[in-house]
């Protein structure tokens, strides 16, 4: 069973529908027991980092998520669910995050007014390192983004994919150990996103080059 973690950070319907299309057994849940016994975990998220961290703590989900990751459960963070895996975010005046990957979250500050924030739409992701979840994907492809902040991993080997926007080349895919995370929405990125999601649902959580710390 795949647990889609519901921590009141946005709409999870499209993640569930994408897994349904792949024929995978998935539930939307905020129950720590479901997270503990899940074969794999999808951790989505839309909205603000401050509110998301507050909900995770109030709902008692931070610790079960940490334990699942420590146990090597395959884990996919999406969008805000990627950002709050890192140590801290510049959003909402500065937010302490889960700290499962070393690094921070910064805001786009475009110099060209044509570069709007949020970064919304389809942009090119270049897969920078090999990973089991990239099996069957081309070396680069277009995925759907909606975000104003981006992650800056401390360790370059945790940056698995890169994208250019607003004058920066930012990390659009990160991962270490059994954790992989995408800034783009795999569930809304057409057939290519579905292929990445499909590979995640077949991944045993091993074979990534980098470890978390």
């Amino acid at each position, binding site marked *: 069973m795949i647990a889609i973690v519901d921590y009141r950070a946005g709409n999870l319907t*499209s993640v569930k529908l994408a897994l349904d299309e792949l024929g995978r057994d998935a539930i939307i849940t905020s129950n720590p027991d479901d997270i503990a016994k899940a074969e794999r975990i999808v951790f989505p998220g839309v909205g603000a980092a401050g509110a998301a961290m507050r909900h995770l703590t109030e709902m008692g989900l931070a610790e079960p998520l940490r334990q699942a990751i420590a146990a090597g459960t395959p884990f996919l963070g999406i969008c805000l669910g990627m950002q709050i895996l890192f140590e801290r975010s510049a959003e909402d005046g500065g937010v302490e995050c889960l700290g499962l990957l070393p690094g921070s979250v910064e805001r786009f500050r475009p110099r060209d007014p044509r570069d709007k924030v949020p970064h919304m739409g389809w942009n090119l992701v270049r897969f920078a390192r090999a990973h089991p979840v990239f099996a069957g994907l081309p070396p680069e492809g277009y995925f759907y983004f909606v975000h104003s902040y981006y992650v800056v991993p401390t360790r370059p080997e945790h940056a698995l994919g890169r994208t250019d926007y607003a004058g920066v080349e930012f990390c659009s895919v990160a991962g270490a150990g059994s954790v992989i995370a995408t800034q783009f929405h795999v569930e809304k990125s057409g057939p290519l996103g579905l292929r990445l999601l499909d590979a995640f649902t077949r991944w045993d959580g091993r074979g990534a080059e980098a470890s978390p710390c």
Partner: protein
Amino acid sequence: MLTRRLIPCLDVIRGRVTKGVRFQNNVDLGDPVEIARRYYLDGCDELVVYDITASAERRPTDLDMVARVARAVRIPFAVGGGISSTDDMARALAAGAEKISVNSLAVLHPEIIAEGARAFGSQCMVLGMDPAATADRARCPSGYEVTIRGFRERTGLDAVEWARRAADLGVGEIVVNSVDADGTRSGFELNITRQIAEAVPVPVVASGGAGCAAHLRDVFVEAKADAAIVAGILHTGATTVARLKAELAEMGVPVRRDAGGKTP
């Protein structure tokens, strides 16, 4: 590089996609789910589904139709029509929509934009507006006045002023649908699209008048639109999303073409 988006628009009346000119002489074009799926597989970047008679018939959005479209496509889509509260928005989002489009409602009750943005995030909130050219420059310095209720009522609001205010209230995107160009297939209204694109910090979607790839190029390059809505020329089969994108790529406009091939 961030690509320019092509967004087919489905105007739905009683469960069927229809096409008219200025909301008149509507023709039945088929099932919204089948049409959405076809455009999705052909490489469109996003979809808009308007339940165009919901508000006039004083009924909520057809959520069953929204849910069926959501199952058929793996790209974002916006829903408009029949939205009158944040509860209505929550239901459409839960049915699988990515964005909510408000138009007349936002003019009459601008606070709905801020409430929606607070509840679901700005990325969910799309302002649709239907500006019409006006000679009354004293009231509307941009030369365009916002109309509501399917172009039937003029509001006296300046289109650029309204766009700025909506962005301040928290919309994440603005669809500029020209009343004068709608359904003509003779090109987008570049003037007002460009004025708004230069006035607001959020993405602008041009709508109304798409007749060929050159019109799209003009609205992306000359009018600085981030995305464009295409309807009639796709619905009649005059062209396809894939063909328009190939032509745009040849003209040097960045578009997403490798849609990813087969679904797993």
